[in-house]
Protein backbone atom coordinates (compact mmCIF):
# COMPACT_ATOMS: atom_id res chain seq x y z
CA UNK A 1 0.00 0.00 0.00
CA UNK A 2 1.49 3.31 -1.04
CA UNK A 3 1.77 6.20 1.33
CA UNK A 4 -0.84 8.11 -0.63
CA UNK A 5 -3.32 5.26 -0.45
CA UNK A 6 -2.56 4.72 3.20
CA UNK A 7 -3.10 8.38 3.92
CA UNK A 8 -6.29 8.50 1.93
CA UNK A 9 -7.71 5.45 3.68
CA UNK A 10 -6.83 6.77 7.09
CA UNK A 11 -8.35 10.14 6.26
CA UNK A 12 -11.56 8.44 5.17
CA UNK A 13 -11.79 6.61 8.49
CA UNK A 14 -10.95 9.66 10.52
CA UNK A 15 -13.82 10.69 12.77
CA UNK A 16 -16.21 8.00 11.54
CA UNK A 17 -16.66 6.57 15.03
CA UNK A 18 -17.52 9.96 16.46
CA UNK A 19 -20.04 10.46 13.68
CA UNK A 20 -21.60 7.05 14.32
CA UNK A 21 -21.83 7.72 18.03
CA UNK A 22 -23.62 11.01 17.52
CA UNK A 23 -27.28 10.79 18.45
CA UNK A 24 -28.76 12.84 15.65
CA UNK A 25 -32.30 13.10 17.01
CA UNK A 26 -30.99 14.21 20.37
CA UNK A 27 -28.90 16.81 18.57
CA UNK A 28 -31.98 17.97 16.65
CA UNK A 29 -33.95 18.34 19.89
CA UNK A 30 -31.13 20.17 21.64
CA UNK A 31 -30.56 22.57 18.76
CA UNK A 32 -34.25 23.38 18.38
CA UNK A 33 -34.58 23.93 22.09
CA UNK A 34 -31.71 26.40 22.08
CA UNK A 35 -33.07 28.17 19.03
CA UNK A 36 -36.46 28.51 20.76
CA UNK A 37 -34.84 29.79 23.94
CA UNK A 38 -32.98 32.48 22.04
CA UNK A 39 -34.75 33.27 18.77
CA UNK A 40 -32.64 34.13 15.78
CA UNK A 41 -34.41 37.43 15.30
CA UNK A 42 -33.44 38.54 18.80
CA UNK A 43 -29.86 37.53 18.36
CA UNK A 44 -29.84 39.17 14.93
CA UNK A 45 -31.09 42.42 16.42
CA UNK A 46 -28.47 42.14 19.11
CA UNK A 47 -25.82 41.80 16.45
CA UNK A 48 -27.28 44.47 14.22
CA UNK A 49 -27.61 47.11 16.91
CA UNK A 50 -23.89 47.62 17.44
CA UNK A 51 -23.46 47.83 13.68
CA UNK A 52 -26.07 50.57 13.36
CA UNK A 53 -24.71 52.30 16.43
CA UNK A 54 -21.24 52.26 14.95
CA UNK A 55 -22.51 53.70 11.69
CA UNK A 56 -24.51 56.39 13.52
CA UNK A 57 -21.54 57.26 15.71
CA UNK A 58 -19.30 57.51 12.66
CA UNK A 59 -21.79 59.84 10.96
CA UNK A 60 -22.05 62.05 14.05
CA UNK A 61 -18.28 62.27 14.28
CA UNK A 62 -18.01 63.11 10.58
CA UNK A 63 -20.67 65.81 10.72
CA UNK A 64 -19.32 67.30 13.94
CA UNK A 65 -15.79 67.22 12.61
CA UNK A 66 -16.90 68.88 9.40
CA UNK A 67 -18.70 71.65 11.24
CA UNK A 68 -15.78 72.31 13.56
CA UNK A 69 -13.32 72.26 10.69
CA UNK A 70 -15.47 74.65 8.68
CA UNK A 71 -15.75 77.03 11.60
CA UNK A 72 -12.01 76.96 12.16
CA UNK A 73 -11.37 77.63 8.49
CA UNK A 74 -13.75 80.57 8.46
CA UNK A 75 -12.19 82.04 11.59
CA UNK A 76 -8.61 81.62 10.38
CA UNK A 77 -9.49 83.09 7.00
CA UNK A 78 -11.31 86.21 8.16
CA UNK A 79 -10.48 86.52 11.86
CA UNK A 80 -8.02 89.54 11.76
CA UNK A 81 -10.03 91.62 9.34
CA UNK A 82 -13.23 91.01 11.20
CA UNK A 83 -11.70 92.24 14.51
CA UNK A 84 -10.35 95.46 13.03
CA UNK A 85 -13.61 95.93 11.20
CA UNK A 86 -15.48 95.76 14.51
CA UNK A 87 -13.12 98.30 16.13
CA UNK A 88 -13.44 100.67 13.20
CA UNK A 89 -17.16 100.34 13.34
CA UNK A 90 -17.33 101.29 17.02
CA UNK A 91 -14.96 104.27 16.69
CA UNK A 92 -16.70 105.64 13.66
CA UNK A 93 -20.09 105.30 15.38
CA UNK A 94 -18.84 107.21 18.41
CA UNK A 95 -17.24 109.99 16.41
CA UNK A 96 -20.08 110.46 13.99
CA UNK A 97 -22.48 111.19 16.83
CA UNK A 98 -20.32 113.97 18.30
CA UNK A 99 -20.67 117.65 17.59
CA UNK A 100 -17.74 119.85 16.65
CA UNK A 101 -17.28 121.10 20.24
CA UNK A 102 -17.43 117.61 21.61
CA UNK A 103 -14.86 116.53 19.10
CA UNK A 104 -12.54 119.33 20.21
CA UNK A 105 -12.99 118.24 23.84
CA UNK A 106 -12.13 114.69 22.90
CA UNK A 107 -8.99 115.84 21.13
CA UNK A 108 -7.97 117.99 24.07
CA UNK A 109 -8.54 115.11 26.47
CA UNK A 110 -6.51 112.89 24.21
CA UNK A 111 -3.65 115.38 24.15
CA UNK A 112 -3.70 115.62 27.95
CA UNK A 113 -3.77 111.88 28.26
CA UNK A 114 -0.77 111.58 26.01
CA UNK A 115 1.05 114.34 27.91
CA UNK A 116 0.53 112.52 31.19
CA UNK A 117 2.54 109.58 30.00
CA UNK A 118 5.36 111.64 28.52
CA UNK A 119 8.50 112.21 30.52
CA UNK A 120 9.96 115.54 29.50
CA UNK A 121 13.38 116.66 30.34
CA UNK A 122 14.16 120.36 30.55
CA UNK A 123 15.68 121.39 27.33
CA UNK A 124 18.60 123.24 28.86
CA UNK A 125 22.24 123.21 28.06
CA UNK A 126 24.10 122.26 31.24
CA UNK A 127 27.24 123.92 29.92
CA UNK A 128 25.55 127.29 30.16
CA UNK A 129 24.64 126.93 33.83
CA UNK A 130 26.70 128.43 36.57
CA UNK A 131 27.66 126.64 39.75
CA UNK A 132 24.67 127.85 41.69
CA UNK A 133 22.22 126.69 39.00
CA UNK A 134 23.93 123.31 38.71
CA UNK A 135 23.57 122.79 42.46
CA UNK A 136 19.83 123.51 42.17
CA UNK A 137 19.47 121.03 39.33
CA UNK A 138 21.35 118.36 41.26
CA UNK A 139 19.24 118.93 44.35
CA UNK A 140 16.08 118.66 42.27
CA UNK A 141 17.28 115.41 40.77
CA UNK A 142 18.16 114.04 44.21
CA UNK A 143 14.59 114.75 45.17
Amino acid at each position, binding site marked *: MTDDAKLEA*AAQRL*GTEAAERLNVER*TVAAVLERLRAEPVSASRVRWMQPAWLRIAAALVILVAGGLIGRRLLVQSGTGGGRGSHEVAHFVSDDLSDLSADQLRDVLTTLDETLDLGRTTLPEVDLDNLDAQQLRVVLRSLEG
Partner: protein
Amino acid sequence: MAQPQPIAATPTPSPSPAPDATLIAAWRGGDEQAAAELVRRHARALARFLAGAGAPEADVDDLVQEALIRAFRAVAGFRGQCQFRTWLLTIGGNVLKDHGRRAARHQVVPLDERLRARDGDPHERAEAGEAEARLAVGIGELSRLQREVFLLRAQQGLEYGEIAAALDTTEGAARVHYHHAVKRLKEFLQ
Protein backbone atom coordinates in the same frame (compact mmCIF):
# COMPACT_ATOMS: atom_id res chain seq x y z
CA MET B 1 -67.57 -7.60 -23.43
CA ALA B 2 -64.11 -6.83 -22.83
CA GLN B 3 -63.23 -6.45 -19.31
CA PRO B 4 -61.72 -3.14 -18.58
CA GLN B 5 -58.09 -3.42 -18.21
CA PRO B 6 -56.96 -2.69 -14.75
CA ILE B 7 -55.37 0.59 -14.63
CA ALA B 8 -51.75 0.10 -14.05
CA ALA B 9 -50.73 1.75 -10.88
CA THR B 10 -48.44 4.50 -11.88
CA PRO B 11 -45.58 4.54 -9.51
CA THR B 12 -45.69 7.66 -7.41
CA PRO B 13 -42.36 9.31 -7.76
CA SER B 14 -40.74 9.64 -4.42
CA PRO B 15 -40.44 13.28 -3.62
CA SER B 16 -36.92 14.43 -4.08
CA PRO B 17 -35.49 15.93 -0.97
CA ALA B 18 -35.68 19.66 -0.79
CA PRO B 19 -32.37 21.30 -1.51
CA ASP B 20 -30.57 22.95 1.36
CA ALA B 21 -31.33 26.38 -0.05
CA THR B 22 -35.05 25.68 0.18
CA LEU B 23 -34.74 24.50 3.76
CA ILE B 24 -32.66 27.53 4.66
CA ALA B 25 -35.28 29.84 3.21
CA ALA B 26 -38.01 27.95 5.07
CA TRP B 27 -36.09 28.18 8.34
CA ARG B 28 -35.61 31.89 7.85
CA GLY B 29 -39.35 32.07 7.41
CA GLY B 30 -39.82 30.42 10.79
CA ASP B 31 -40.18 26.76 9.79
CA GLU B 32 -38.63 24.83 12.65
CA GLN B 33 -38.87 21.51 10.83
CA ALA B 34 -36.66 22.86 8.09
CA ALA B 35 -33.96 23.50 10.67
CA ALA B 36 -34.47 19.98 12.05
CA GLU B 37 -34.02 18.51 8.59
CA LEU B 38 -30.82 20.48 8.04
CA VAL B 39 -29.47 19.14 11.33
CA ARG B 40 -30.35 15.57 10.32
CA ARG B 41 -28.57 16.00 7.00
CA HIS B 42 -25.35 17.50 8.21
CA ALA B 43 -24.79 16.72 11.88
CA ARG B 44 -22.86 13.50 11.32
CA ALA B 45 -20.57 15.04 8.71
CA LEU B 46 -19.94 17.87 11.14
CA ALA B 47 -19.14 15.44 13.96
CA ARG B 48 -16.75 13.57 11.68
CA PHE B 49 -15.04 16.77 10.64
CA LEU B 50 -14.69 18.00 14.24
CA ALA B 51 -13.36 14.67 15.48
CA GLY B 52 -10.91 14.58 12.59
CA ALA B 53 -9.77 18.09 13.40
CA GLY B 54 -8.88 17.05 16.93
CA ALA B 55 -12.03 17.67 18.97
CA PRO B 56 -11.99 15.66 22.20
CA GLU B 57 -14.38 12.75 21.88
CA ALA B 58 -16.30 13.77 24.97
CA ASP B 59 -16.93 17.22 23.53
CA VAL B 60 -17.96 16.35 19.99
CA ASP B 61 -21.71 16.42 20.74
CA ASP B 62 -21.54 19.83 22.36
CA LEU B 63 -19.34 21.23 19.61
CA VAL B 64 -21.72 19.94 16.93
CA GLN B 65 -24.64 21.66 18.66
CA GLU B 66 -22.70 24.88 19.10
CA ALA B 67 -21.67 24.96 15.44
CA LEU B 68 -25.24 24.32 14.31
CA ILE B 69 -26.61 27.04 16.56
CA ARG B 70 -24.04 29.51 15.26
CA ALA B 71 -24.85 28.54 11.70
CA PHE B 72 -28.60 29.04 12.15
CA ARG B 73 -28.04 32.40 13.81
CA ALA B 74 -25.70 33.55 11.07
CA VAL B 75 -27.52 31.98 8.16
CA ALA B 76 -28.61 35.40 6.92
CA GLY B 77 -24.97 35.99 6.05
CA PHE B 78 -24.71 32.80 4.01
CA ARG B 79 -24.64 33.90 0.38
CA GLY B 80 -24.39 30.50 -1.22
CA GLN B 81 -20.73 30.97 -2.14
CA CYS B 82 -20.31 27.28 -1.33
CA GLN B 83 -22.50 24.40 -0.19
CA PHE B 84 -24.28 24.81 3.12
CA ARG B 85 -22.42 21.79 4.50
CA THR B 86 -19.03 23.24 3.58
CA TRP B 87 -19.98 26.53 5.19
CA LEU B 88 -21.17 24.66 8.28
CA LEU B 89 -17.88 22.78 8.52
CA THR B 90 -15.90 26.02 8.47
CA ILE B 91 -18.10 27.29 11.29
CA GLY B 92 -17.29 24.05 13.07
CA GLY B 93 -13.61 24.91 12.64
CA ASN B 94 -14.20 28.27 14.32
CA VAL B 95 -16.13 26.64 17.16
CA LEU B 96 -13.31 24.18 17.70
CA LYS B 97 -10.76 26.98 17.76
CA ASP B 98 -12.79 28.87 20.38
CA HIS B 99 -13.17 25.68 22.37
CA GLY B 100 -9.41 25.21 22.33
CA ARG B 101 -8.90 28.76 23.56
CA ARG B 102 -11.37 28.31 26.36
CA ALA B 103 -9.75 25.13 27.46
CA ALA B 104 -6.40 26.92 27.20
CA ARG B 105 -4.97 23.81 25.74
CA HIS B 106 -4.92 21.92 22.50
CA GLN B 107 -3.29 18.65 23.32
CA VAL B 108 -3.62 15.50 21.34
CA VAL B 109 -4.77 12.49 23.32
CA PRO B 110 -1.90 10.00 23.46
CA LEU B 111 -2.24 7.00 21.24
CA ASP B 112 -2.57 4.40 24.00
CA GLU B 113 -5.21 6.41 25.85
CA ARG B 114 -7.20 6.92 22.67
CA LEU B 115 -7.19 3.24 21.96
CA ARG B 116 -8.06 2.19 25.51
CA ALA B 117 -11.20 4.26 25.28
CA ARG B 118 -12.52 2.12 22.44
CA ASP B 119 -14.44 -1.07 22.74
CA GLY B 120 -13.13 -4.41 21.48
CA ASP B 121 -9.81 -6.12 21.56
CA PRO B 122 -7.12 -3.56 22.26
CA HIS B 123 -4.55 -5.26 20.08
CA GLU B 124 -6.94 -5.58 17.17
CA ARG B 125 -8.06 -2.01 17.56
CA ALA B 126 -4.47 -0.89 17.71
CA GLU B 127 -3.64 -2.73 14.50
CA ALA B 128 -6.63 -1.32 12.69
CA GLY B 129 -6.37 2.20 13.96
CA GLU B 130 -2.66 2.79 14.06
CA ALA B 131 -2.52 4.76 10.86
CA GLU B 132 -5.60 6.71 11.86
CA ALA B 133 -4.13 7.55 15.22
CA ARG B 134 -0.85 8.65 13.67
CA LEU B 135 -2.78 10.73 11.22
CA ALA B 136 -4.74 12.34 14.05
CA VAL B 137 -1.49 13.30 15.74
CA GLY B 138 -0.13 14.67 12.49
CA ILE B 139 -3.26 16.68 11.82
CA GLY B 140 -2.88 18.25 15.22
CA GLU B 141 0.54 19.50 14.13
CA LEU B 142 -0.71 21.21 10.99
CA SER B 143 -1.62 24.86 10.73
CA ARG B 144 -5.33 25.54 10.96
CA LEU B 145 -5.66 26.28 7.26
CA GLN B 146 -3.70 23.20 6.26
CA ARG B 147 -5.79 21.08 8.62
CA GLU B 148 -9.09 22.37 7.32
CA VAL B 149 -8.07 22.11 3.67
CA PHE B 150 -6.83 18.56 4.22
CA LEU B 151 -9.98 17.45 6.01
CA LEU B 152 -12.33 19.11 3.55
CA ARG B 153 -10.48 17.47 0.70
CA ALA B 154 -9.41 14.07 2.02
CA GLN B 155 -12.16 13.39 4.53
CA GLN B 156 -15.14 15.22 3.03
CA GLY B 157 -14.12 14.78 -0.61
CA LEU B 158 -14.70 18.38 -1.66
CA GLU B 159 -13.31 20.02 -4.78
CA TYR B 160 -10.63 22.67 -4.44
CA GLY B 161 -12.94 25.36 -5.78
CA GLU B 162 -15.50 24.60 -3.11
CA ILE B 163 -12.83 24.56 -0.40
CA ALA B 164 -11.39 27.85 -1.61
CA ALA B 165 -14.82 29.50 -1.58
CA ALA B 166 -15.55 28.27 1.94
CA LEU B 167 -12.21 29.34 3.35
CA ASP B 168 -12.13 32.61 1.41
CA THR B 169 -8.93 31.78 -0.41
CA THR B 170 -7.90 30.89 -3.93
CA GLU B 171 -8.06 27.48 -5.50
CA GLY B 172 -4.32 27.54 -6.05
CA ALA B 173 -3.66 28.38 -2.42
CA ALA B 174 -5.96 25.55 -1.34
CA ARG B 175 -3.96 23.14 -3.52
CA VAL B 176 -0.69 24.33 -2.00
CA HIS B 177 -2.02 23.94 1.54
CA TYR B 178 -3.23 20.46 0.74
CA HIS B 179 0.12 19.54 -0.79
CA HIS B 180 2.03 20.73 2.28
CA ALA B 181 -0.41 18.99 4.60
CA VAL B 182 -0.04 15.67 2.78
CA LYS B 183 3.74 15.99 2.76
CA ARG B 184 3.85 16.49 6.52
CA LEU B 185 1.26 13.83 7.28
CA LYS B 186 3.17 11.22 5.30
CA GLU B 187 6.05 11.75 7.66
CA PHE B 188 3.77 10.82 10.54
CA LEU B 189 2.56 7.70 8.80
CA GLN B 190 6.04 6.36 8.12
